[in-house]
């Protein structure tokens, strides 16, 4: 588990790095396979991987990703946008 989030918002680069680390660990793939704009389809991530990734992200960032939002997530940028939004709401 990562240390608790600092009060300072993370930069996009920091967030992307943590998101990719979570996805890589969940899918048992090396971090090097991932790019900030990678799509799940290109990475060979299926729906079961997808729900495991969501679970891992919820644990990592202590957030709750609604099912409706989850259905829209198809790529790393979608994850970044969603996580940023949920973190902002959490710290608001």
């Amino acid at each position: 588990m990562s240390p608790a989030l600092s009060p300072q918002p993370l930069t996009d680069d920091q967030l992307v790095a943590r998101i990719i680390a979570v996805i890589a660990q969940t899918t048992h793939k090396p971090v090097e396979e991932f790019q900030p704009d990678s799509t799940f389809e290109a990475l060979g991530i299926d729906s079961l991987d997808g729900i495991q990734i969501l679970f891992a992200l919820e644990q990592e960032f202590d957030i709750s990703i609604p099912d409706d939002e989850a259905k829209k997530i198809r790529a790393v940028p979608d994850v970044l946008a969603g996580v940023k939004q949920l973190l902002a709401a959490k710290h608001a």
Partner: protein
Amino acid sequence: MRRVAVTGLGVVSAIGQGVAAFRDSLAQGRSGITPIEQIDVSTLKFRHGAEVKNFSWGDDRERALYDRFALMAGAAAEEALAQAELPADRTAVVTGSCLGGNHFEDQSFRELYGEQRTRFNPLTIPRIMENAPASLITMKWGFRGPAYTVASACSSSNHAIGQAFWMVRGGVVDAAVCGGSDATFSLGILRAWEAMRVVSPDTCRPFCAGRPGMILGEGAGMLVLEEWDRAVARGATIFGEICGFGMSADAHHITQPSGVGAEHAMRSALADGGVAAEAVRYINAHGTGTTANDPVECQAIRQVFGSSNPAISSTKSMHGHTLGAAGAIEAVATLVAMKEGFLPPTANFTTQDPECPGDIIAHDARLVPVDYALSNSFAFGGLNAVLLLRTAR
């Protein structure tokens, strides 16, 4: 080859405890999906299910000995056996369950981990074992033939009925009590389903565009199968005939259906019964209402049936997805509807998803007599079981 008559039916479901009430709900397209009341679901993302309200069966001793899923099986078996005269040593009992006695399991683990209790109720093991319904039925009615339980997730009871059918047809036994049950509404099980992100927040709309997912249900279905000539000789009421059974594995993915396995199972059921695809005019679909299942199933049906285009419905829109009871409850639904000359609808229907092609029976039952129907069950893990049913004439 011996023919196999269905001479008894029993059901416990959200849309009827007993075949008469169940039949009325099917004919009226009445959904049994409501807010869940059995347990506190306020911390879950979904709040709706197809619950059996005010269920009670068995004497004090039975209610102490068995978990809810076994009592539901007992209730359905009692109804199915009401008119039965079966040979004790030549009657098989085959039941299906996905979850076993999870109500008691959930309670026991809460006591163990939450309350640090160090003693368990001595009935814990017999209450939670998946074969409790099969054992209950053998003991209560004295059947001493082959008896066992099948666990293949959402295909469990179709596998159970199919195995029993083959035993009766093949002469291993002369009769069988078969079906399945599951009591789904314990918090641990609901949490696990929540994590799958496939459960609808409100209702179940199979084959519809933008469908929100599945709705969990609970209940039991039981069938009495009997060698045809024996049933006729004793003047038994014949509710229908099982004439084919097909099963297959997708060999593909633990949760994503491939379609190829579904096709193979449907073709196998037709071949097993020696019936041409064109003769089948209705399919009680697996039809979970999930994003993944419905288009794959509809396209598999199209591959098998082509232009003969049988009518399709998902009665899960009414009684929910009852997991290990699904095949049995849907076989009962198909048999009672066929016998009375109607086809049950898909309730809660909005607009058909173009990815789910086929002649979907929406909203209202159709008054159409059919000779043959399929009832599909396709489980997580890619284990498929399909029954070929015939109307009694």
